[in-house]
């Protein structure tokens, strides 16, 4: 088990390095000069732009820039935003709570909705209920959150006036964005859960449990749901990227703050330190969540534990 965790940690470090390196390379390849973007509208002379380029260290040879970048990261120094003129770590720290709040709320909505839809479809397999729930999950899976977000605002805020359309503050502000993002997430969970439950229902031990006359809710909870849960868990962990990416759109539709918005702005302005900071934090979150999900899998599926030790 320890060996397994150790191996996963080494993998995690490799993934982190890969992510930050790709971010560095990606921004090198995108057209546009950050110094010019910062100063062009002010009427700066070409010499003044060149001066700023040098100040930002953009004139140094690439390997030099890359080494300096890795070295600063290793020291935990995310640097200063070129655009904002503020410490990147601080900027990320401000946006993190809003992003985590939305991601957690959306995940909860997604799991509950996804499990419900998936189990319902599996239990009533090949009936109209299955068709309807499957259709709902496909809609969730394929509807862009930009569109569903605006529809939700029109319906619940503008016409029914139940919930505030935009902004942040109390739980009421969180409901709509969490539902919209959670609904999108539930689609893929539902499909996997349905497949898994259908599979498990055919297992001899489930048939045996039912034959023994155990109440059907017990069979469902203990014998079916437990094996089906890891499937949902894996999807959630894998969808973390989607949660952060989809959150960009959700954040802007609902006028919320968040890491996604910060990242988009930074990319548009070639604000390298901020892009790198967000990538590091995102990659770290991804690695941690997936590591946790894997460890929980081994706990939920005892068979895996034996295989690993």
């Amino acid at each position: 088990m320890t060996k397994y965790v150790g191996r996963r940690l080494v993998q995690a470090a490799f993934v982190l390095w890969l992510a930050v390196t790709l971010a560095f390379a990606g921004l090198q390849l995108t057209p546009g000069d950050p110094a010019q973007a910062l100063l062009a509208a002010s009427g700066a002379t070409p010499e003044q732009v060149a001066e700023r380029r040098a100040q930002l260290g953009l004139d140094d040879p690439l390997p030099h820039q890359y080494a300096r970048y890795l070295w600063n990261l290793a020291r935990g120094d995310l640097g200063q935003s070129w655009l904002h003129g503020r410490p990147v770590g601080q900027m990320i720290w401000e946006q993190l709570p809003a992003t985590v709040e939305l991601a957690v709320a959306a995940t909860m909505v997604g799991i509950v909705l996804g499990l419900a839809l998936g189990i319902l479809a599996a239990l009533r397999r090949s009936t109209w209920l299955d068709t309807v729930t499957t259709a709902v999950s496909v809609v969730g899976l394929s509807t862009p959150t930009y569109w569903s977000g605006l529809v939700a605002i029109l319906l619940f805020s503008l016409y029914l006036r139940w919930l505030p359309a935009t902004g942040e503050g109390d739980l009421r502000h969180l409901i709509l964005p969490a539902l919209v993002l959670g609904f999108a997430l539930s689609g893929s969970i539902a499909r996997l859960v349905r497949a898994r439950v259908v599979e498990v229902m055919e297992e001899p031990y489930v048939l045996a449990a039912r034959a023994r006359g155990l109440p059907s809710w017990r069979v469902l909870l203990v014998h079916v749901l437990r094996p089906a849960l890891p499937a949902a868990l894996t999807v959630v962990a894998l969808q973390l990227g989607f949660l952060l990416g989809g959150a960009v759109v959700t954040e802007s539709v609902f006028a919320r703050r968040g890491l996604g918005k910060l990242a988009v702005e930074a990319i548009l302005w070639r604000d390298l330190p901020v892009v790198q900071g967000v990538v590091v934090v995102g990659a770290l979150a991804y690695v941690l969540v997936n590591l946790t999900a894997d460890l929980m899998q081994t706990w939920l599926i005892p068979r895996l534990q034996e295989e690993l030790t």
Partner: protein
Amino acid sequence: MRRFVIALASLSMLLAGCCTPTKAPVRIVYGLTLAPTGIDPHINASSELGIPLTSVYDTLVYLDPDTGDFVPGLAKDWEVSDDEMGYTFYLRDDVTFHDTTPFDAEAVRFNLERITSPDLASQKARFMLGSYERTEVVDEYTVRIHLSEPFAPLLDSLSQVYLGMASPTAVQKWGDEYQLHQVGTGPFIFAEYVPQDHLLLRRNPDYAWGPSVYRHATAQVGEIEFRFFTDPATRSPALETEGADIMGEIPPQDASRLAESDAFRIEATPIPGVSLMFFLNTTRAPLDDVRVRQALLYGTDRQAIISAIFRDTSPVAYGPLTENTFGYEPAVQGYYAYDPFQATALLDAAGWTDTDGDSIRDKEGKPLMLDMVLMGWGYMPEVGQLLAAQWSELGIGVNTSPPVSYPEALEVASEGRHHLIPFNLSGSDPDILRKFFHSQAGFNWSKVNDVEIDGWLETAARTSDRNERESLYSQVQLRVMDQALVIPIRDYTNLNGINDRVQGLRFDAQGWFPWLIDVTVEPK
């Protein structure tokens, strides 16, 4: 978690029937359209930052939008030396910053030195000071700015929030986090800022040194909360659900609907500066031929664009400056009225005819195709598509790019890989033309290299005589249109959606920045 606890607490208070009405300050919500890219006016360049911060900082002078004259602000009076390289300001002696630091000549010097220090890496303020050399403290309330050569736009610059006066104590105390703790002398106090979420201003009860352009002595509203609505589609719903009381940049199609409602109104504010226009790359064939450029202008039905895309909410632009900018030359309105026949004749004369019958003109085997580079904001893609459609009837083909980012647009245009590229920029001083039509300018996207234009622009930037400047800028505008360097489309107009219980929203000479001190609100 804390929010949750607060929600629970307020809920239990409600349930307990605890309803003693506390007299809360009147608060309004002001919707901004961009989360500003940094909000320190000395460092950052976003025009969005000026909307709240114009009321946090006072400036040495103010520009009266009605008369075009500069009026006293933190400076009671000022003198310009004969060589126009020394500006002496006599300061008020009764002003204190929100943190009780007194305002004096030393504070002015501190601010100007901060702005011009290379370490601050100012993106705008430093350049607004032009040929600034140093600041001399003459006595406690007298300060002199020395220039290395005359710089006519100096007073205009000093009237803007970017050169607003910040508390030296606060700047030193907060260092690189000063942005979150800004302290000025203005009618509103910077109370709270959570980046990308909201910014809160609170009324300054001690304000007693407002300029004559303000109508009230102190602010009439207790608190103003700014929120960010980056997505245009969400702006009018936010206004209608009362998520905001004032909202900038309402999309034109929503504006007409809002204007008809009883609860809201639209106030259109013209923005001075350079109109939305397409720059024609005069160094790239076939646009190196002035006849082809003129044909494009004659072949453009601007009124149709204004009607279709802007729903007649902004005026047609005829020249590089918008009509409400100082120095605007009205004669440009006589140029290039829509005339497709004239356009056809010019193209024929330039040798471009459709010889192969593919409905695109050609010359020496080359089709008349133009590369149009478009950015994703400000309705540039929509205008570009409509232009392409209008010109296709004249036998001109257009390749429109997918929307590019600002840094990419800068790169493409500076390398001259475009035929056409649009832009607009706001500013109250016509010196803004120097950024676009001087041969060395960063935005010289027409690739113009005209010694006379360079000379007029340079002289006008050094001349303080208003009549002389006016005539120099008039020559520039006429030359730009004679040479068909640009296709002006519209004068930029900001459509503000306002809840009817809010009154008195007025804007400064820049058009972007509200004088929030005069905003009044009726109770709900």
